[in-house]
Each structure stands twice: as structure tokens, then as C-alpha cells.
């Protein structure tokens, strides 16, 4: 998973495989960070207090 692991030897497959992996992880963590961050801002801004339990 990390190139500093014992006996690591780069080859093309690593770029493709690990590229895909970090890409997916990147998107997921970016999305999650956005949600959490925005939720925090929203909460500070006072949103979400006035709902009656059925906002749908």
C-alpha cells in the first residue's frame, strides 16, 4: 500500500492499481470532509434548529 514497505519494487501495475485506489479514497474523503465541514458551518450558522422532525 505504501512504497516504503519492505521489498517494494515499482512496476506499471502499481501505478494503475494504486492510482485507482488513491483516487477513490481521495474522492471519498474529499466528499466526506465537505459534508462534515459544511455541516459544522451550517450548525454554527444556526441551521437545523427549527425543524419539526420531518423536514422531508
Amino acid at each position, binding site marked *: *500500500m505504501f512504497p516504503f514497505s519492505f*521489498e517494494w519494487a515499482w512496476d506499471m501495475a502499481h501505478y494503475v*492499481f494504486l492510482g485507482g485506489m488513491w483516487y477513490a479514497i481521495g474522492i*471519498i474523503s474529499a466528499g466526506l470532509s465537505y459534508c462534515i465541514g459544511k455541516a459544522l458551518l451550517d450548525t454554527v450558522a*444556526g441551521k437545523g434548529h427549527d425543524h419539526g422532525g420531518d*423536514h*422531508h
Partner: protein
Amino acid sequence: MDSALLPKGVKRCSFPQFSIGILIVGAVLLWGVYAMLLCWFKGLNQTGMNDSYGFALWIWADLAVIALGGGAFFTGLLKYIIGKDELKNIINFAVVIGFICYSSALLILAIDVGQPLRSWFIFWHVNVHSMLAEVAFCLSIYFSVLAIEFVPLLLENRKLDEVPFFHNLAHNMHEVMAVFAATGAFLSCFHQGSLGGVAGVLFGRPFAFREHLLVWPWTFFLFTWSAAAYGPCFTILLTKITEGITRKKLVKDNVVDLLAKISGWMIASYMVAKLIDTWYWATVTAPSRGLTFMQFYSDGNGLYTLWIIVAELVVGGILPALILTNKTLRANKSMLLLAVILACIGVCINRWVMVLQVMAHPVLPFEEWFAYMPSWQEVATTILPVAYGVILASLAYRYLPVFPQERELNPVNG
């Protein structure tokens, strides 16, 4: 007693009644946990596996629950990417099922390895050429996607929703859910496929081996396609079962019909590909290795004979495809139920043969077919996730607004 936690405007059984149900299933769960602990502490000698059956019941269960759990990614894909908006009424449940299936799969894998404490070596010392590594990576990352998809539903619990941050978080997650769903679909395609690749790359095993397209064997694509095709059937089946147990209609017919129709056409197209694959394998791939089609179906122990391929392809494939693609048949409740049950069996048989028949078939000409009988510990640990799934699904249904149409379909008087 727990009324404050229940969703508003729906009826739930009494807490004691619910508790008794959970306790009964919990007992089964504990039995499975006991077997699991035996496997962990005493080792895999507790199983019926042997050197000829390095992969057995668990790996089948793993492949099967993941195929069946494929409804989550495919429904998500249909709703968020393709834009089939009606499916929002079933997507929550699909996500719950997916979550259960994938967490079960991970648990089974953790029991299945000989050195569970070293299982992270699959990441640390990864061999990127291994299909199993691809499975492990995609599976675990996709599981985190499922967890993310599950979170907003969880936060919609009446009590949790009262917390402003949670409310906002759920809201924001709903907003960007398409991004997660897209990533999930991408990952799912790969891990469903790589699960198929697990068998397809075994060039020492002529029953499993398939010719390649790019770096992937045909089974890679067939597995992805079949999971997408059959997964929704499992979602429908479980919806029907839940409706039966709760004695309520939870999802409107048009939603089920849409999913069933898509599933039907997916199965139909999958069957075309699968039949071509089978034909090519039987007439080109296998003979090039000196084996005839019938040699793969001549198990001296009687299990792996022609019936199994008929059961998989005709009964579990062509038949449900015919029913589900036909509007009239699909509209018939019993036929629909029959079709989804057959479909689920069909995909399970496919996963079974791709694991166990591969092991059973003797490749060396002087060997006999290998027989295998699972031990009770294996059976118990395979039932364990089922019990866990029942409990988690029950909890989700009881405390979370899983079925958005429930209130509308089952108005509570007063």
C-alpha cells in the same frame, strides 16, 4: 418504552415482542460467534476444509452475499447516476442490505484466513497482480462508501435528527450522495469483477479458467454483470419478506416493478453473455487443455453432474429472465416472487460452482473428484451473518425511516 426513538407516524410492534424476536435470533448469532471463536482460537482445523478444498463454504458465502448485496450499488447507480428517481423509495433498504452483506463478507473473510492478525498484510505487502488484493482493496473501500451511504439514514432517526449538527450532516450528505454513489459504483464494478477474476485467472484450473480481455478474464465482467442483474432481485425478495413479516405494504408496486423490469433485462443480457462464455469455454478453452465438457460434470460423488449447470443457467437464469422481462408475468405477485427466488438461487449456484466445483474437479488425470463436507463450525459461522443481518435489518426498520412510502401506504389512525 422505546417510543421516543421510533419514526413518527408509523406503527411498530411492542418493545417486549421485538425484544423476544431479537433474543431468539440473537441466540443463533451467539452460536455463530462461538463457532467463530473456535475457528480463531483453535484454528481452521475446526472446519471441513482440507488441502484440496482451500476455498469452500465461506468463500462461496462471501461471493454469494456480495452478489446479492449488489443491489445496493446498482440501485444507487440507477437512482443517482441514471436518474431513476422512483427508486429513492427502495434505495434506503438496498443500502441497508448492502451494508449487511458487505460487513458480513468482511467478517467471513476475517474468519476464513489462517492468520487473522496478519490479514492487513494484504494491504501492507500488496501484490497488485492478485485478484484477491483487488477484491480486498475495493471491498474495504466500497464498504466505507456503504457506511457513508448508511450514515444519513442513521442520522434520520428521530432522536439523532434533533441534534442540529447531525441534521445538517445528513442533509449535506444527501446533497452530494451522487458523488459517493458514483464512486461506489466504480469500486463495485471492480470488486465484483475481481471476485470473478479470482476464479477466472486460475490457469491451473481448467474448470475456472477463462480467456482474458485486457488483464481480466471473462468471469470478471460476468460477475459484475450478474451482481448488477441479480442484486436487485435480492432487494425485492427481502422487501417482500419484510412486508410479509410486518404485514404491511412498504413499497409501491411501480417501484418494485421498475426494479424487477430492469433486473429482468439485466439477467437476460447476462444470460446471453454467460451462455456464449460457457459455449466458448466448453468448445474451445477446455478442449485446448485436453478436457471435454462432460468431464467437468462427471463427479463420482454425484454432486457435480449436469443438473447443476441446468439449475444455474435454465432454472436460475433463463426462467427468471423470462418472467421478469414479461410485463404480465411480472405483475403477477406469485410469479414475481418465484422469479426473484429462482434468480437468487441461480446466482448462488453460479458462485458455488465457481468456488467449489473448481476445487472438486481433479485436474491431474490420475486423481479422483474431491469431496468436501462442511463442519458445523463452518455452517454456524455462515449462518452467523444471516442472524446478524436479521437483527440489523430489524433494528433499522424499527428505528429508521427505511421505507419512505410506509407512512403513506399505512396511515396510522389517530
